[in-house]
């Protein structure tokens, strides 16, 4: 009984291997795309994945919400020699580290990415400074302070970063992200430092002390969040009266779910986010997907589902209304002039240089 069945398996798998070599183009491909989960992944699914799969039925895209630990995951997979992620959504500073370590692919932007509709090459079309050696930006997002309007009297609502640090007039617990980036900038901003000078001050030990001293003033009211989905949750539960958070998630909670949240655009921390390609098995399929998913129209499409700004100049005029709600998305974008009055642009070089030391100090400060 046993022997013939083994033979059958052997023959059939040999045939399978032979045919695999012949029918390349329509071979089913499974792409594992790693992203941040929640409303953000949902916007990618609707703007990119679903239309792409409809046009390329042999491709199946699988979502993995692993981006919060993307660098660790990439390192582990590359050390183990078993890379299972095909495309990863990550922050530019982490992408630079991964690139330096040689675990993700360098990108020749003009060869790999679609030009703008008017023929401008990709390297000219993406926002200045946003393209990285191994990094293709998708969105401009910002981390903002948000509050629950129900937790303050209607005639005394907060509206600035100063108010966030003002426990006397605006009592209640606050949630901040459990990392120093952003929080130290806000502390200095609230302490009276001009946004343009923040990183000069933060480069000095006295500046760091000053930032931590400012954070100390609200420390016993602080809760720390790790995942992007936590901040709208904490606000909705009224566990905190303020929380910092990603503007798109707050938008989603406020507009789609109807939560009573109000964004304080004062001192918004602006940053990019985008794709990197690990050295995996499906590179060809990934590149085909990338060319399509990062063209001007597609990046503008993502803004139909979440209030993150597209990273290409040629996408901006294409941004319109929310796909389900029909509201104009432009007024919710971080880059809208009404919102962009005192932005702090996150300095990735600074955080690459000083990040480890400050993260360690921040972790100690949190636990003490």
């Amino acid at each position, binding site marked *: 009984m046993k022997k013939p069945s083994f033979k059958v398996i052997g023959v059939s798998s040999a045939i399978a291997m032979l045919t695999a070599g012949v029918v390349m183009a329509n071979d089913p491909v499974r792409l594992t795309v790693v992203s941040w989960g929640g409303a953000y992944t949902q916007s990618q699914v609707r703007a990119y994945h679903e239309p792409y799969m409809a046009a390329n039925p042999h491709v199946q895209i699988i979502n993995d919400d692993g981006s919060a630990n993307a660098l660790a995951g990439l390192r582990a997979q590359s050390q183990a020699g078993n890379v299972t992620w095909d495309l990863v959504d990550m922050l530019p500073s982490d992408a630079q580290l991964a690139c330096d370590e040689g675990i993700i692919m360098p990108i020749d932007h003009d060869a790999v990415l679609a030009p703008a509709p008017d023929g401008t090459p990709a390297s000219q079309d993406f926002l200045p400074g946003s393209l990285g050696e191994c990094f293709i930006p998708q969105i401009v997002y910002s981390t903002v302070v948000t509050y629950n309007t129900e937790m303050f009297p209607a005639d005394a609502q907060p509206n600035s970063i100063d108010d966030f640090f003002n426990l006397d007039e605006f009592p209640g617990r606050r949630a901040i992200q459990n990392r120093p980036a952003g929080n130290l900038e806000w502390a200095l901003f609230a302490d009276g430092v001009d946004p343009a000078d923040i990183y000069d001050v933060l480069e000095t030990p006295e500046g760091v002390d000053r930032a931590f001293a400012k954070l100390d003033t609200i420390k016993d009211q602080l809760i720390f969040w790790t995942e992007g989905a936590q901040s709208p949750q904490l606000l909705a*539960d*009224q566990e905190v009266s303020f929380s910092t958070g990603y503007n798109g998630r707050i938008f989603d909670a406020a507009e789609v779910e109807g939560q009573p949240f109000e964004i304080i655009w004062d001192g918004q921390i602006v940053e990019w986010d985008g794709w990197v390609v690990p050295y995996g098995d499906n590179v060809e399929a990934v590149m085909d997907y990338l060319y399509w998913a990062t063209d001007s129209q597609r990046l503008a499409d993502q803004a139909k589902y979440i209030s993150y700004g597209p990273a290409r100049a040629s996408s901006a005029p294409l941004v319109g209304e929310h796909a389900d709600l029909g509201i104009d998305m432009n007024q919710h974008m971080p880059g809208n002039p009404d919102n962009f009055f005192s932005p702090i642009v996150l300095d990735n070089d600074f955080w690459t240089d000083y990040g480890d030391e400050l993260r360690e*100090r921040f972790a100690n400060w949190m*636990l003490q």
Partner: protein
Amino acid sequence: MTTGVQDVAETDAQGGMITADGKPLKASLQRAERRRKIIAFLFVAPLLTYLMISFIVPIGQMMFRSVENPHIISILPKTLAALDEWDGQGLPDEPVYAALAEELAAAQEDRRVGPLAVRLNYEISAARGALTRTARQAGNMEAPFKEQFLDAHRLWGSPEIFRIIKREGRPLTASYYVSALDRTYDENNNIVRQPENRRIYVDLYMRTLGMSLGITFITLLLGFPISFLMASLPMRHANLLMILVLLPFWTSLLVRTTSWIVLLQQQGVINSLLVGAGFIGDDGRLSLMHNMTGTMIAMTHILLPFMVLPLYSVMKTIPPAYVRAARSLGATPWTAFWRVYVPQTLPGIGAGAVLVFIISIGYYITPALVGGQSGQMISNLIAYHMQTSLNWGLAAALGTILLVGVLILYWAYNRLVGAENLKLG
């Protein structure tokens, strides 16, 4: 009664016993014994292989990672050789910079600067920036190199980075353990304590130990009466109680933890009940979570079955006649309970306490979700270094210290109480 061997045995020329087929009895017995051993081993072999692959080898790897240090010695051998000449005072001379330029350029070629930069950054802040930035320029540098290095990054003008390269230029390192014990190296490579605002791990180990002991004690306090009741009630009622203990035990850990979030948060069930009943005002809601209280409450609940089950199984076997005999001999109820009953439950108390303590000392998910900052345990920091700071060497050192700590505690327990007194059922 005679045995089979004697039946067939005859005596050979030397007077030794031989079996029916003419072989010496001794050899024949040995062979039979060996076969028995092989068969016994074959029964154990799958488990042993499984344990080796999934448990012993990874733990060994983890422990090795806490001392492993290959990058500097493999990428910068010439720089290290040149540094031999350097006395550690002031900046090194031109040959060191020349060797460094050559090796950084080569490392840049085959993309090995990243791991090296990461490794050095654990020891000195901004080393990552200094190395990656300099390595990009290194290919175009020409002699003399020292000036260009000083221009490339401020760190090359400080003797400290060269001291670190020299110190860590060995295949094994102690520096992860040095950091894990809140120590650091001073200018003369002596190990000294970290400045006050950077001491963190030792306190956290102590906190973890304290919380685990506390949780063990509370579970014992809550679990003992329940087990006692279960063991003395008739089966029908005992089973009902047993289901109440087991039901949460069967529920997913994550579900139970998130349920505690719903119960404990400021607008949560418990606070709302207290406000509704008028015990506290609406502005005086208790902080039951995002702190140590939350961790203790949730973990006590989650670990309670691990105390109740061994206690119950031991109490079930204690004959009620002993306590009755003590009472009939004139003991007060308290004396009968304390001097006759409790000593017999000790194996169960021991087993429950060891289980709860060892599980809680490595607990991770519940503190992460309800602990806030003051309710974090050492495992949360190990996870932090695994996932966020990516300092796997330090994570491995912290983990190894935890492992050794638990082994020492178990050894002490064994000396004091005796592991053979553990009884799980």
